[in-house]
């Protein structure tokens, strides 16, 4: 599994270009999240892909060839903070509810909806933590589940900023047949 971060134009059709590229390269995407950044013109993607280092290099380099991608970087193997958010609806009756609450506490999850027959649990964190909670909840009966997909950020001074400078002046005269 390889993790890539990309800064893309925040406009319609860009997600399609990115996913279409992965399809063309025969790379299966495990999760892809996209959301706006502090700069409203730019969106940030975290792409988790079923591929090896070679495939990730090709995906990264091919992504950067897309006009609407400002930067793409394979961050696998770097010091990463990774977060996934899950909402899990689990069946809960009067008998097993205390036991459930204990588990939820251990996993630092929280209950966000309570109904007579079920609870919705919200948990965020590393993928392994959510997978772990899911595993222990399974015997209670998982009724429904939604996951956000992973978002990742390199730690500390390892900054990944989108390029925002204006296009270089040579571009203004480029592309003409008047050479």
């Amino acid at each position, binding site marked *: 599994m390889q993790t890539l971060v990309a800064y893309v134009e925040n406009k319609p059709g860009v997600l399609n270009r990115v996913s279409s590229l992965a399809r063309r390269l025969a790379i299966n995407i495990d999760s892809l999240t996209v959301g706006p950044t502090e700069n409203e013109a730019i969106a940030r993607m975290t792409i988790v892909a079923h591929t090896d280092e070679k495939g990730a*290099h090709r995906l990264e380099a091919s992504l*950067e060839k*897309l006009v*609407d991608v400002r*930067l793409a970087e394979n961050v696998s193997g770097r010091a990463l903070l990774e977060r996934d958010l899950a909402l899990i609806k689990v069946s809960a009756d009067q008998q097993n509810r205390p036991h459930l609450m204990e588990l939820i506490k251990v996993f630092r999850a929280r209950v966000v909806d309570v109904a007579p027959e079920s609870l919705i649990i919200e948990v965020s964190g590393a993928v392994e933590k959510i997978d772990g909670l899911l595993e222990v909840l399974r015997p209670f009966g998982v009724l429904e589940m939604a996951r956000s997909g992973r978002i990742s950020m390199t730690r500390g001074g390892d900054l990944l900023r989108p390029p925002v*400078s204006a296009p270089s002046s040579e*571009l203004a005269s480029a*592309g*003409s047949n008047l050479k």
Partner: protein
Amino acid sequence: MKLTGAEILCESLTRLGVKEIFGYPGGAILPVYDALGKSKLHHILVRHEQGATHMADGYARASGGVGVAMATSGPGATNMVTGIATAMLDSSPVVCITGQVSSKVLGSDAFQEIDITGITMPITKHNVVVSRAEDIARTIREAFIIASSGRPGPVLVDITKDAQQASAEFDWEASAPQLPPKRQRSNHDQAEFVRAVELLNSAKRPLILAGHGIMVSGAMHAFEQFVRAGNYPVAMTLLGIGCFPASDPLNLGMMGMHGEAWVNNAIQEADLLIAVGMRFDDRVTGDLRTYAKSARKIHIEIDRAEINKNVKVDAALVGDAREVLEKLTPHIVTRDHGAWIRHIAGLKGDSAVRDIQSLPDTGHLYAAHVINDLWKETHGEAIVVTDVGQHQMWEAQYYHHNRPRTLITSGGLGTMGFALPAAIGVKFAKPDAEVWVVVGDGGFQMTMSELATIVQEKINIKIAIINNGFLGMVRQWQEFFYDKRYVATPLVAPDFAALANAFGIRGERITKRAEVVPVIRSARESTETVLIDFRVEQEDSVYPMVAAGASLSDMIRRPDSPLVETATEP
């Protein structure tokens, strides 16, 4: 100044230096055609939109500039798909402009509505829908930049009919390109550069693999300096042909599936491969597990995505070929490769005796004779536009190109039907050049309707049909790998000379070797288009051949030699 979107489009194209547009009108692009009529742009009416894209592609390849194709929405746009893909696979800068239904009915399955940007997303470098007149000038300028910069490629601009009809303020200065800023990667990694220099100066058996990128980057001079500095033998990819003179003793010829035996053997024996502007295509490498096992590899390439894609390299120099070569050349100190070059020359002897040119005249007309004679008669100075198949490989083997952009051919996609329309585009890019189409009887029948375009435009192109009555390359595979079961490859064709006459073009039919030179001379003397139907040997094959997926060392050689190996299933 207020102009309609259609007028803005024509004005923008004019300001970008466009002279010709290859296209076909229709409802959703009619406002543009109305404006075209009032502009100085010359519109070439094609007979099929695929032809328009190949013409724009041929124009781009011959001129080094951007070719422009135009079509209406729906079927007009979808007919362009093959031509766009052809340009994409060969990194050719083509801008395709399509009409689109009015933005008010977009998404309603209106008459002749098709999602052409969706369809062409994976086969364009970029594409875009424009639905406001005020965005047209900027978008077209951006399209030209994208198409021609970096690794070039096709860009499609889909303009809704209401955007063509609406009026907007036309201000060229204010409509400057606004492409998203890109991360600037430092192209020249110093460690890779140092490693490359070490490899160059320690190699005993170096060999250059020269590709299309040299032409695209305009690096011919820098490349020659580099070759001379290191005294390196040079092998060419199909699209690299012309970037270095065939007459130069260091030019070995074409590599790969139908490369000359000495070239492929040299690749397999080399201790250093210097790949410049090429991408280690499977037609070039054969089986990757056995490819150039004893060679270290340097890859000079503008597209990072090509690095280590097919072949793992020891030093990758990402950047424009000319810039990288200019930086490398001063560091070359080792140039004594005489023994290696003499060794490669020794490998040629065996091939010469197998050459069809060396075989006694059996009274049969071989395609190789035609192309060899064409080369001699045109002194290697013509621009030759080939289609795809056997004749394409024979042309690459027997027409020796000394100048860049004089072989125009569909390499990556291998598009049959490319030659005739592409040659029309070439002729518009180089009106004074002698342009020859070399095409098979199969491919010619795919796009021969463009003969009418030639007549309507009154242009002078020479057409040599290498007619063997088969889809020759497929037949060859059937002969080698399917026990001569010629399924769907025997091909009925019209009398091409009579067909030419029907279009108002002079047609000739040639069946004997002695007739080849006179007909070529007579065709060259004519100031009009001439079509020559060369009836060649029906079941000749292209040799040598590396079967698909086989090792470059396992070449099928021309029979009637004790050294010939038996064919193996690919």
